[in-house]
């Protein structure tokens, strides 16, 4: 992959995640503080386990399939403690007991859904290409199992391109990852629409 392509993907990630975090910030009444520059990674399949790290740590993952002019997959994955912070910020007032009860699960699923949808809307507006999100799915489970199920759902081949962004909220580092996993040809479709030569 050329450095131009990486720059292009990073730019896509910046635009998408910019919108996703604005949506999140609105939901949290402006409590969002910081957003990192997206990290574009092209990984060999065998490098994924190391990249994911802490395979048996518990994470929350929201997963969506994209259809329309561009097809692909998106996920929002964060450590369960960070998900708990967000749930408390969203629906915590006066609640006690289990954080991830039906309301807590639904809050985190909806939060992931809104972030992913905002990301896609930004890319759609930029390109004029339809990118339609499926209904979201949520899993709170071992990181290895969540990542692995997402990667298998996306039928990743020997090489995986990930656009990942981290952010923090309310002074608490939320190591939230927003990941876009399009098929190789789908990047080209977006690049073509934007008038960029073949990458």
């Amino acid at each position, binding site marked *: 992959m050329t450095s131009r392509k990486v720059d292009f993907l990073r730019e896509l990630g910046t635009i998408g995640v910019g919108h996703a975090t604005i949506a999140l910030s609105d939901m949290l009444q402006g409590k969002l503080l910081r957003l990192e520059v997206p990290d574009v990674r092209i990984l060999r*399949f*065998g490098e*994924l*386990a190391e990249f994911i790290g802490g*395979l*048996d740590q*518990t994470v929350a*993952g929201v*997963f*969506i*399939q994209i259809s329309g002019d561009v097809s692909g997959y998106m996920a929002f994955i964060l450590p369960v403690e960070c998900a708990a912070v967000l749930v408390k910020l969203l629906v915590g007032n006066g609640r006690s007991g289990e954080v991830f009860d039906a309301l807590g699960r639904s809050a985190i699923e909806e939060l992931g859904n809104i972030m992913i949808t905002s990301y896609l809307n930004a890319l759609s507006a930029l390109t004029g290409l339809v990118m339609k999100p*499926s*209904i*979201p*799915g*949520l*899993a709170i*489970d*071992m*990181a*290895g*199992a*969540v*990542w*692995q*199920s*997402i*990667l*298998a*759902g996306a*039928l990743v*081949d*020997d090489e995986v391109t990930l656009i990942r962004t981290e952010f923090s909220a309310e002074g608490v580092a939320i190591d939230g990852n927003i990941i876009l996993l399009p098929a190789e040809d789908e990047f080209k479709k977006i690049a073509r629409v934007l008038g960029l030569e073949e990458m």
Partner: protein
Amino acid sequence: MREVFVNMGQIHGMAGDGILTTVGLGSCVGVALYDSSAQVGVMGHIFLPQSRPHSAKVELPGKFADTAIPALIEEAVRLGAQKRRLWAKLAGGANLFANLAGPNGNIGMQNIQAVLAHLKLHDIPVVGQDVAGHHGRKMRFYVDTGRVTVTAIGKDPIDI
């Protein structure tokens, strides 16, 4: 005791004393093959049911059920096992995301079916399994005894 981690698409084996572990099985299927007389165990962490026809050379045979089962058997035999004495234990093949099920069912179920079909093809009996459902699993295979334990978040560990 020596513990070796088997990541997605990998195959590892050992003879004698040691533990083979896969962490974070979601839709993947962990497969343990064992020859108790030789005290040889091999483990795979299978990602998808079927290798792609266009890929002439599969980089990681352990990634796909159709290429992983022969590769696991080959590795067990290389370490001193006899094919006719091998048995299998399986864990994983879950469906974590309910929205992922396609027309052919979910990938976890497809992985389980493919693994069972390829084991049958090689006349390897399945003596224990903890598969399907909606949760992730960790699988540990004690090669000295053939014991396999499966753990999941919020559940007691089980022996399969």
